[in-house]
């Protein structure tokens, strides 16, 4: 098990909590917006972590994000159902989609799996753009109003949900199930040979990650009140993967710092306009070449070898 300086860590967490609570009172709406987006992306990457921990890279979570967003938004716009149910509807839809694509996708290993997810992501993006009757095509859906309209209230709401997601994913990764995931990453055939139901395990992890992504999508839609297909493109799926890798696969702090990078980097690079995506790509390649454990792996696991978080 990882040795942790208990009191130091608890202190850090408490400080973090207080900081999180007080934060909105001192900052501009723009910063608040950024924080909410980092929170949502942190959620996305926390979910993606579940799949990444198995050693599988999914390049379609932008699609799950989008399915959650569109379904939740449509439920809000066209029905009188309560907000919570709409969010759940969005998550569930994303979950169902993940089972539909996961079932064939997990029949192949590693690299080919990623390709199937890439294809799926592209197709869903296509549907968002073209199924105008439902999604309103490139014009997008607007005036998506939930019960929480004040940015500051939404901030607290997001923080609450993100903390819940952190707790859940943390628990999962450090449980019996998490060990199975890491075993699959380490040597999938061996895991199968000793009796791990690898197919079902993989599908379950994928499902959970999609449900979280769908939830984040629904939340984002009701925060920005407007969604359109470009928000859920391959570029976004890619940014999520980038965030996960740069932050550090499989770690919680990595997911959040990854979210920070995924949101922050394009913001910082705003001045470079279209070239910023090129920079993001370069960042990813450089990180993989020189810092494969990501931010969390390299800086937090001082004490251990830099190979990324394993075990309990």
């Amino acid at each position, binding site marked *: 098990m990882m040795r942790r300086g208990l009191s130091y860590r608890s202190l850090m967490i408490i400080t973090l909590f207080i900081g999180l609570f007080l934060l909105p009172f001192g900052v501009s709406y723009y910063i608040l917006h950024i924080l909410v987006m980092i929170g949502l992306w942190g959620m996305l990457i926390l979910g993606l972590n579940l799949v990444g921990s198995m050693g599988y890279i999914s390049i379609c979570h932008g699609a799950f994000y989008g399915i959650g967003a569109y379904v939740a938004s449509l439920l809000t716009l066209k029905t009188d159902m309560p907000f919570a149910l709409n969010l759940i509807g969005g998550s569930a839809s994303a979950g169902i989609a993940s089972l539909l694509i996961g079932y064939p996708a997990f029949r192949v290993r590693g690299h080919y799996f990623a390709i199937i997810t890439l294809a799926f992501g592209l197709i869903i993006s296509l549907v968002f753009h073209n199924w105008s009757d439902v999604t309103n095509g490139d014009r997008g859906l607007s005036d998506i109003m939930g019960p929480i309209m004040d940015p500051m209230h939404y901030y607290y709401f997001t923080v609450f949900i993100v903390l819940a997601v952190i707790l859940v994913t943390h628990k999962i990764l450090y449980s019996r199930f998490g060990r199975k995931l890491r075993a699959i990453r380490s040597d999938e*055939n061996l895991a199968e040979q*000793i*009796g791990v139901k690898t197919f079902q395990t993989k599908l379950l992890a994928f499902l959970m990650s999609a449900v979280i992504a769908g939830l984040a999508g629904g939340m984002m839609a009701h925060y920005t009140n407007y969604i359109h297909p470009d928000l859920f493109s391959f570029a976004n799926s890619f940014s999520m993967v980038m965030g996960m890798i740069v932050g550090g696969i499989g770690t919680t702090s990595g997911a959040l710092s990854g979210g920070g990078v995924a949101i922050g980097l394009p913001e910082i690079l705003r001045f470079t306009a279209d070239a910023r995506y090129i920079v993001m790509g370069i960042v990813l390649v450089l990180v993989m070449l020189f810092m494969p454990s990501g931010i969390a792996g390299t800086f937090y696991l001082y004490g251990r070898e830099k190979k990324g978080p394993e075990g309990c």
Partner: protein
Amino acid sequence: MLTVRRLTKHFGGVVAVEDLSFTLAAGEILGLIGPNGAGKSTIFNLLTGLYRPDRGEILLNNENIIGLPVHQYARRGIGRTFQATRLFFTSSVAENIQVGCEVFHKKMTGQYIDEVLDLMNLSERIEKPVEQLTSAEQRRLMIALAMCASPKILLLDEPTAGMIAEEVSETLEMIQAIRNRGTSILFIEHNMRAVMNTCDRVIVINSGKLIAEGTPVKVRQNPDVIEAYLGKSDFHDA
């Protein structure tokens, strides 16, 4: 316990296993020997579901297990080690065993885990990362991992490969102890002394076919067996 009937496997035009039939009785240690490339590891792969035979049956307690998903083989009581050391290298000994045992969490007790580790003389090394184990310890861990399923049958692929004489004796004792607990063992070996001392019976495979079967003493004197090994340096005492 385990009955194999007319097992046949082709890869393209190459016959890997041909019309193989044998049985493994409860509590028996059966040696599987033969020159390199004779098809021994292929047999193991067939017995654990990695390959699907073209013909034949594999009966575990009179139930044909061909066609089941790989994870079911372990769950029904077939444990297996590999010729090359395969473990979850990025984890510790404890974590390896945990993964192995958690699959059966309803049936396994902590006590069983302790017993297995004790048996394989790894209790002291439990927190160590696998990479820090000696090569012999790693091979024993592989056996321990296979034991996690509380298997009725243990398939060991060259368990003493790469070990010095002392380690070999130790490992063979452990194998005996495992049998004494009620597990049947089928093991592939090139070390003839190990085979002679440990096995109740031996089957000999050459070019995918069964060429001899019987007690170690009888098999060793079999002229077909001697011919199969002539000129090959696989036949050795350690």
